[in-house]
């Protein structure tokens, strides 16, 4: 790959409650592109994102963001303030707050609603019209798809340098997934760097520039998404092999 990496993980190990989950993850996320992180359940994809965010500490190795080591002394809020947004698997929507309040919280630069960037808000409403309709609605009352849209829009309410998104299509109806893919494509056009965990290969194929496949706490394949999308044997070997090995 020619684009320099914005985020680099080198030999990252993570332990959670005594369990060794990541066994030396090596990963480079090129700036301005979408990198898909694939792999079976339990391969370590979510742990990788959470380790980058500092929610779980790396026990060895290094995480470097734009030339700065962030794994040792940076807490989660510091990492977020570097311009990294995180959309967790459970979406992390504040159910008792309204959609508008969720968005205001994510906009660190805005203390009040009238300080929100209205042009950017309109852009987000264009991507996710439901958010405009339910702007004053408690987020807990939204459907699963709408909550996912809110979670992603929240991560985009201000320009961010890197988006970490964990399985956005999980549990959503195909039509909703298609809407989501369209919105993420639009985001991709803004050349935001994205590291996206996904189980759905069709979604990965539609969005990814690069792909990394994880298995058993390691990255076992890295390369252009197009190369993998065109090579069914490679898909079979990496994703099929992975499933067979742990069935």
């Amino acid at each position, binding site marked *: 790959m020619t684009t320099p990496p914005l985020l680099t993980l080198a030999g990252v190990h993570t332990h959670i409650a005594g369990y060794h989950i990541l066994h030396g993850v090596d990963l480079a996320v090129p700036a301005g592109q979408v990198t898909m992180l694939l792999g079976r359940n339990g391969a370590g994809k979510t742990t990788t994102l959470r380790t980058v*965010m500092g*929610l779980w500490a790396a026990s060895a190795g290094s995480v470097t963001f734009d030339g700065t080591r962030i794994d040792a002394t940076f*807490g*989660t*809020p510091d990492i*977020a*303030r570097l311009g990294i947004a*995180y959309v*967790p698997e459970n979406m*992390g929507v*504040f*159910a*008792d*707050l*309204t959609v*508008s*309040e969720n968005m*205001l*919280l*994510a906009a*660190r630069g805005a*203390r*009040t*609603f*009238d300080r*929100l960037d*209205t042009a950017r*808000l*309109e852009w987000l409403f264009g991507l996710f019209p439901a958010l*405009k*309709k*339910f*702007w*004053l*609605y*408690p987020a*807990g*009352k939204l459907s699963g798809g709408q909550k996912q849209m809110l979670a992603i829009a*929240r991560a985009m309410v201000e320009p961010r340098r890197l988006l970490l998104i964990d399985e956005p299509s999980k549990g959503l109806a195909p039509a909703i997934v298609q809407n989501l893919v369209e919105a993420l494509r639009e985001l991709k056009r803004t050349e935001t760097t994205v590291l996206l965990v996904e189980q759905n290969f069709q979604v990965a194929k539609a969005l990814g520039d690069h792909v990394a496949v994880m298995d058993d706490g390691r990255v076992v394949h890295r390369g252009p998404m197009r190369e993998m999308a065109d090579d069914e044997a490679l898909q079979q070997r990496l994703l099929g092999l992975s499933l067979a090995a742990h069935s």
Partner: protein
Amino acid sequence: MSEAVSEVVSEPAIATASASSGDATATHAIPRTRFDALPLLLVAVLALAAWPLVGSSSTWLTLTAAGLAMGMIVFIAASGLTLVFGLMDVLNFGHSLFIALGAYVTASVFAALATWTSMPSIALNLGAIGVAVLASMALAGAVGLGFERVIVRPVYGQHLKQILVTLGGAIVGEELIKAVWGPQQIALPPPEALRGSVLIGEVVVDKLRLVSVAIGVVVLVALVWTLNRTKIGLLIRAGVQDREMVESLGYRIRRLFVGVFAAGSALAGLGGSLWGMNQQIVVPQIGAQVNVLIFIVIIMGGLGSTVGCLVGALLVGLMTNYVGFLAPKLTMFSSIGLMVAVLLWRPRGLYPVTSR
């Protein structure tokens, strides 16, 4: 009742958001969360139910006024624990320590400003109360900071340990108070111009309680405004729901919670100051005495709800005064019985905010 956004005052806050979204018309079809007036009606029902039992209208009016005033003082003391227990989920039995500190600091300030309190000047008397209240809040808030750091921080998320260590902290604090101020009770007479009562029609209202009600209204407005109209309030409400996510958005939640704990402690100091003035006597157990009422009030009001805390406090204040007049031996039982009845009606309290 709608489960989400049940805090009444979030309505105007979100209405502001609508105007700034640039398209208010898009929101007209959205069902709005209506203010739930039933708990407030309960206050009126309780008052009206007591009328025939008390008999004399003037006595009933006097008891009602006294009950509402007592409710406001309990609300002030409880509002701190609403933040700490209701929102931060810290079972702080050490809250009584900050109440006692407030009462003792007030006694000391009144003693130091005896020339102000002994003059029949409302301005000087209110000035002394102002100094006492601010000093109480400052000391209780500062001690609260240390209490959070040393006692509470190691047990965040562990209720049983919280009960044990905060209760232990309260006992140690009470002993320290005895060491500083002595174990004997201290008289805390009201300032000269605020002694006695005023007659409003047929109703006898204690002057000092009027001051307490005014301060209570200020606290209520400030709390409701902060929690519902400011970003700090938004952060507190969000932090209660998902602490990790708030940190992932770039906010240092630990620092925020320390601030909330100190603010809760300062409010307890304010409540203790007013409670001491109204009791006119200060004893080392003064905090523990009012602590039971406070827990009743915040559980009944709904954890984390400022308005629920107010309504719960008013109910307890009225009930205590009516039962205290009709059957004094049943006073404490009546408050607990009221809480049981309310929880049977609404198991999560009158205005639940958190999902606990």
